[in-house]
């Protein structure tokens, strides 16, 4: 990886220190303060503030229509914010859009290319637009598109199209890569392949800013996430921290022929509620020792257990807890 030309780090330092997961330098590459965007009289994004640090994968998560794409496009310079202050790599996306375009890579949600453009032509056109580029052939090879070089855009599968868009986003060796709903509409296998690619982008030292409404995707990929709902940012942090903070309960589910254990299970250290459905017991509890305590209980009572699993809360549960409803695509 060639050394990148970097602008001086911002001197203003009133914000909290970067989290552990952020890149080694802790340099802020994106700063958003009180961002606001209206569509007519509808407030799409309101008072959104956050920072993204060099080398991290940062996810903006929330349901469709929450304002994720609008926020991202204001940061990319594709859209103009109505209020707030945004800097990316020290540049103002609205004022320095052209200078910024050369240093960032962008994948837009639901964007298409010309139906009959060939894969190599798209890469070639994009490569011609930037002063500094990486080798297009090598890029297509890394993204598994070498065999599709001469294929037209319309003949590509959904996953191949997204890989091509990743290639176009990486052609100028950008410092920050923006990925908007990258895996929407892809089958699970293609989705996993894309996740590996995104992790690959980060391991090349680039900062990744992505949006998704898939909580599993956010949990798998992101070092930090910001949850956005109705245009407002409602929570931010590392996925594991958010889960620990908002949903400390975990569940133990096991099946046993023995009846009438509910009362005793409730007395286990850390246990909260116990639910019995047929022969299946679901014990909710909190604390690091809770699961061990349930295992000890089973051993002490010499129960024959046909099924045993622990259920950990996810970002999905965090979202439910914070908003009162499940997230929808």
């Amino acid at each position: 990886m060639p050394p990148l030309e970097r602008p001086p780090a911002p001197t203003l330092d009133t914000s909290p220190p970067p989290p552990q997961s952020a890149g080694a330098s802790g340099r802020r590459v994106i700063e958003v303060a009180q961002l606001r965007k209206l569509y007519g009289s509808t407030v799409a994004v309101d008072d959104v503030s956050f920072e993204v640090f060099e080398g991290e994968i940062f996810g903006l998560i929330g349901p469709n229509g929450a304002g994720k794409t609008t926020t991202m496009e204001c940061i990319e310079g594709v859209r103009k914010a109505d209020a707030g202050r945004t800097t990316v790599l020290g540049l103002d996306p609205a004022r320095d859009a052209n200078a910024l375009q050369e240093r960032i890579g962008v994948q837009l949600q639901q964007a298409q290319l010309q139906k009959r453009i060939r894969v190599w032509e798209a890469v070639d056109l994009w490569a011609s637009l930037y002063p500094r580029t990486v080798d297009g052939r090598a890029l297509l090879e890394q993204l598994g598109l070498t065999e599709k070089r001469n294929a037209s855009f319309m003949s590509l599968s959904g996953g191949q199209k997204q890989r091509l868009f990743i290639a176009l986003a990486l052609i100028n060796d950008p410092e920050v890569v923006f990925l908007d709903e990258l895996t929407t509409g892809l089958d699970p296998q293609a989705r996993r392949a894309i996740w590996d690619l995104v992790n690959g982008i980060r391991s090349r030292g680039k900062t990744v800013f992505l949006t998704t409404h898939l909580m599993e995707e956010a949990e798998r990929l992101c070092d930090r996430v910001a949850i956005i709902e109705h245009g407002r940012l409602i929570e931010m942090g590392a996925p594991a921290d958010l889960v620990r903070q908002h949903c400390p309960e975990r569940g133990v589910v096991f099946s046993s022929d023995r009846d009438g254990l509910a009362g005793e299970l409730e007395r286990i250290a850390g246990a909260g509620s116990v639910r019995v459905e047929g022969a299946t017991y679901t014990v909710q509890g909190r604390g690091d020792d809770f699961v061990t305590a349930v295992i000890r209980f089973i051993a002490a009572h010499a129960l024959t257990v046909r099924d045993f699993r622990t259920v950990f809360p996810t970002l999905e549960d965090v979202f439910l807890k914070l908003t009162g409803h499940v997230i929808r695509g």
Partner: protein
Amino acid sequence: MRGLLKLTWLEIRIFVREPLGFVAAVGIPLAMFLVIGRTVGPGADHSARTTQFLAQDLPLFVSIFISINAALSLIAVISIYREGGILKRLRATPLRPAVILGAHVLVKLVFTGISLVLMPLAGRRLYPVPLHAHVAGFALAVVVTTVAILCMGFVIASMVGIARFAQLIGSAILYPMLVVSGMFVPLSSMPPPLALLGTVLPMSHAVALLRGAWVGAGWLVLLPHLGALALTIATCLALTTRVFRWE
């Protein structure tokens, strides 16, 4: 500049890959020219009117038909690109907005040129009368009229959001303009209100410029029409920069 040429060349190749689009742009006007020419030509009376029609009116009509077709194709391409997010994707690159739209103008000019060059080439053996045009002046007139009509196309493409209707609405605006353009009936023999409408609309100046250039009229005759078309181009471009929607 490099981006403009690259994008133009790419769009030309993409356009040629769509067989129907290519046939519509180049084949249909050419076929119309030859078929009408042959139908009217042999066996018909050699009155001054017929000769005038074959030697001047039909070639002029086909030229302007090609320009209008180019504008309709431009409207279709722009609205399809907008609907598919292609315009937005191109805009999120260092390409300037004017370059993205300018490339399409160049593509249409290229195909207009190809069609017009093919016309006399095919006509040499198949057309009933020889064509005598002032080539350089006429070529310049074609470029100006085509650019003016394409710029009108940009305004229409800006206003019409839905790709399916864009070409239809474009036809409904551009073709009726031709009726009061003096192409078929001279403006002087139209009822005054229609003649006035025709004079105000840019199409009459396109027709007058093409006709004047064809017969080699002097600058003094052509200049007012050239000015009217320049005004059309400037107005349409100003409107486009204000109302054009990229998504």
